[in-house]
């Protein structure tokens, strides 16, 4: 793999926005979809940018992820493919979610290019809006040292923070690069061509960066197995599972912000499917002594794990959006790992890998049936 060093004296965002500008100027990219700080300064949204001047103020790697990028791309391609070339600048988990959505025909990838960056994780959005300045500073520290306090727990255990198993066209390497420097890499053939047309010569060896990525990945993998083994106990049995979700108020925010949950009418929101009649509730209360309202909480969470656990990319949007600090994405990551292993599936790795529930082998899974 080869790449080019880019100067990051004005931070990563400045460096990447300069690259974006030359890509735009070269004419091979018509528009850029990239996170940008809102006017109040307190948060970030995705902006579809056509005017190159506006790229000056974009924030390719914001400290928070209030909007999952796959959702932005989904809105853009809702009616089918885009006619002009769009470069989407996203965190790796956002790219992976976009791939999962494409497999579910909710995103059209034609004329869409992806650029991702090594992601150290994101801070909690709620913390950020309270004190953007302090958290900007903190995030700068995290970018320099590749560790620090306040990252969302899911991010601490993310092993897909770089471009391996993430089908991007361009990638910006940050782990272990010299301060005030980053590397840009054309990962796909299209990505290489883009850089070539933009006059960015990619001839440097980037193996030093690759070694650092491996090291960082080992560390995150270690965190992950620790958290998973803790969760194995904490989430074992209905009593414990009930405790994990005990604070849930059934607002279904976690589902609404999840990039994978695309259904316009969620099964768990359709009241005649899941709600019972009063007399049935009375009968249940009779049998159990009493029943919980809001109800159907466990059905919602376990049901959602069934519906999209295979595709969960561990982006943490659900947990970030939860008003009650329920560890939703940690539980999803734990269960997701297990089911993904069963079907040897890595969500978001490639559009060529079918979603396991939409395909089959004739001779398989006999341990689950009685013949």
């Amino acid at each position, binding site marked *: 793999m080869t790449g080019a060093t880019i100067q990051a004296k004005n931070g990563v965002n400045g460096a990447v926005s300069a690259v974006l500008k030359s890509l735009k100027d070269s004419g091979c990219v018509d528009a850029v979809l990239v996170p940008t700080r809102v006017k109040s300064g307190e948060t970030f949204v995705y902006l579809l940018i056509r005017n190159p001047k506006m790229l000056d103020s974009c924030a390719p790697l914001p400290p928070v992820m209030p909007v999952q990028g796959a959702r932005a791309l989904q809105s853009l391609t809702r009616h089918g493919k885009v006619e002009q070339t769009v470069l989407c600048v996203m965190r790796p988990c956002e790219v992976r979610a976009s791939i999962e959505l494409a497999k579910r025909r909710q995103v059209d990838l034609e004329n869409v290019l992806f650029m991702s960056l090594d992601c150290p994780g994101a801070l909690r959005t709620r913390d950020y809006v309270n004190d953007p300045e302090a958290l900007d500073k903190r995030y700068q520290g995290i970018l320099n040292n590749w560790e620090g306090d306040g990252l969302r727990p899911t991010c601490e255990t993310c092993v897909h923070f770089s471009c391996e198993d993430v089908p991007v066209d361009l990638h910006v390497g940050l782990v272990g690069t010299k301060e005030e420097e980053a590397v840009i890499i054309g990962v796909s053939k299209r990505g290489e061509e883009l850089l070539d047309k933009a006059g960015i010569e990619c001839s440097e060896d980037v193996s030093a960066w690759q070694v650092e990525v491996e090291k960082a990945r080992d560390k995150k993998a270690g965190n992950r197995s620790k958290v998973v083994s803790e969760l194995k106990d904490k989430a074992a049995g209905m009593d414990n599972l009930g405790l994990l979700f005990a604070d849930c108020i059934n607002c279904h925010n976690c589902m609404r912000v999840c990039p994978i949950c695309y259904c316009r009418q969620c099964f768990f929101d359709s009241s005649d499917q899941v709600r019972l009649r009063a007399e049935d509730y009375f009968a249940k209360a009779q*049998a*159990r002594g009493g029943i*919980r309202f809001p109800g159907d909480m466990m059905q919602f969470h376990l049901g959602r794990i069934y519906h999209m656990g295979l595709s969960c990319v561990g982006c943490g949007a659900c947990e970030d959006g939860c008003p009650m600090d329920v560890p939703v994405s940690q539980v999803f990551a734990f269960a997701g790992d297990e089911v993904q292993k*069963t079907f040897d599936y890595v969500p978001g790795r490639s559009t060529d890998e079918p979603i*396991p529930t939409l395909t089959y082998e004739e001779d398989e899974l006999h341990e689950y049936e009685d013949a």
Partner: protein
Amino acid sequence: MADKFEPNIVGFLCNWCSYAAADLAGSNKLEVPATLTTIRVMCSSRVDPVMLLSAYLRGADGVLVAGCHPGDCHYQTGNYLARRRFALMHKILETFGLDSNRFRLSWISASEGKRFSEVTNEFAEHITKLGPNPLRKMPFIE
């Protein structure tokens, strides 16, 4: 014998085979557990495993899905997909240490009335050994 535990079993039966097998079992006067509640579906793949989960969370002691033998699905591939989905739900239940052994997937063709009777009775025995679904007594879960 008022207190004898009779397991509540919910069975999702494919219209083209297992449901017909249940019918056949009936006309041949073969025994089927009295507490089996059957739900007719047009194919085993019509069953979103969330329905199985619902039955379990709402207190069913056992949940059965029965469809045509592999290769014999009226819609060609439905039961292969149903098997994947069932396996996925099973895996999730296992992961959380929940009662995955209260769930069963069987293939019973339209001509197998006897098999229908055997499978359901055997499953009922198995569930009787497990005892009632503990969730029936948990006020904060559902």
